[in-house]
């Protein structure tokens, strides 16, 4: 009567004003919503969309870094990268399992990713041509992800919040290994420093785009905030990320690729960085499938899924052959 048991079940609720009011009151009193609790259909749909996009992002996110495992310059860097990519796979699975508690099946979610219907984080549609990109991804991309994910540990939906607690706990090494990698390049020769600067130049703006559209343009933000699915707006999280990251860049001698970036003592009452306008045309272009790597990423996922078909079939055939009546679970 949990995850799998809910799949395809009738999850309709009667959404009378009283029901919606009681649901909101529960949220407002900081009570978690659990899988079997009644919930508005729109709350369920929002979470399915959000958690499955998050899961897909973890899985597709393995590709740009996996690209460098065989070419890591030392064994130390190689085991770190392997462990990190392995974590991303695990995070995808935690999240798919949280999504399944809402009544969708894994097969359906996989199909939506492979058919291109589902979205995943656009950041993974940028290429990783140099080793410094691995540092930039850990430091900036995982740094931005952590900004997003820490508040999700308090999300109103229990299974998502609990998955995020696990993810955040494991995520902490990802950013540090990336920053360490970039720092060691900045302590190297001119070419190595230039490589680090070039990676920052290419990853900075896409990292800022990871927080999504500006609050004035975000179609999902208000309701998600009211339902306490999200705790901060896109722009609030983006500002926190900029304020945390700029000093980290300056400390190791990197220059942020933004001529409009400057400290503003009075920003939001407590001081913060002013920064330049994001290229929203680029943002929407990549979201809509026209980034440099969109086609390659989907092709790689489709190939992996197709290449793995015989393994799934063989495992099921093996299980069926060895099944005894008592444990005949596979069907």
């Amino acid at each position, binding site marked *: 009567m949990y995850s799998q048991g809910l799949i395809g079940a009738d999850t309709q609720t009667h959404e009378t004003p009283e029901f919606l009011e009681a649901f909101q009151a529960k949220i407002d009193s900081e009570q978690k919503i659990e899988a079997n609790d009644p919930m508005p259909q729109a709350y369920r749909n929002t979470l399915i969309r959000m958690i499955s996009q998050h899961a897909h992002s973890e899985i597709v996110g393995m590709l740009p870094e996996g690209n460098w495992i065989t070419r890591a310059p030392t064994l130390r860097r190689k085991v770190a990268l392997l462990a990190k990519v392995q974590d991303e796979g695990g995070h995808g699975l935690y999240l798919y399992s949280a999504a399944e508690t809402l009544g969708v099946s894994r097969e359906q979610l996989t199909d939506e990713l492979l058919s291109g219907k589902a979205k995943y984080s656009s950041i993974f549609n940028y290429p990783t041509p140099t080793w410094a990109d691995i540092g930039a991804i850990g430091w900036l991309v995982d740094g931005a992800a952590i900004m997003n994910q820490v508040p999700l540990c308090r999300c109103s939906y229990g299974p998502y919040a609990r998955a995020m607690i696990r993810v955040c706990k494991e995520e902490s*090494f990802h950013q540090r290994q990336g920053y360490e990698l970039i720092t060691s390049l900045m302590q190297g020769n001119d070419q190595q420093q230039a490589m680090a600067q070039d990676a920052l130049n290419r990853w900075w703006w896409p990292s800022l785009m990871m927080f999504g559209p500006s609050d004035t343009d975000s179609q999902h933000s208000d309701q998600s905030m009211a339902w306490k699915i999200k705790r901060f707006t896109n722009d609030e999280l983006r500002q926190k990320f900029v304020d945390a990251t700029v000093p980290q860049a300056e400390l190791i001698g990197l220059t942020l690729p933004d001529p409009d970036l400057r400290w503003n003592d009075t920003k939001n009452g407590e001081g913060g960085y002013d920064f330049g306008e994001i290229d929203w045309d680029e943002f929407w272009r990549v979201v809509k499938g026209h980034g440099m790597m969109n086609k390659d990423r989907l092709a790689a996922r489709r190939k992996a899924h197709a290449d793995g078909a015989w393994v799934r079939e063989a495992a099921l055939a093996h299980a069926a052959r060895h099944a005894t009546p008592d444990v005949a679970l596979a069907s």
Partner: protein
Amino acid sequence: MPLWEVFIRPRTGLNHKHVGSLHAADAQMAVQAARDVYTRREEGNSIWVVRAEQIVASDPDLAAENFDPAGDKVYRHPSFYDIPDEVGHM
């Protein structure tokens, strides 16, 4: 009489946690019995029961083989990576 393993959610927002087992003829009676046996003092607000025979456990004799390899993988932990002190918490 089948054996059922009982899991209780202490509070909304937390995972169900294994608390023990009981014998009951069917699932419904198992849930009722679990309510009577394991939640008399507000120990929880949700119950799961699972037929004990449906639980597959790892082999205790393979514990070393299964779990020791994680012991020397220090690079899976944040403290393995050196970053400048000035950065503070990351």
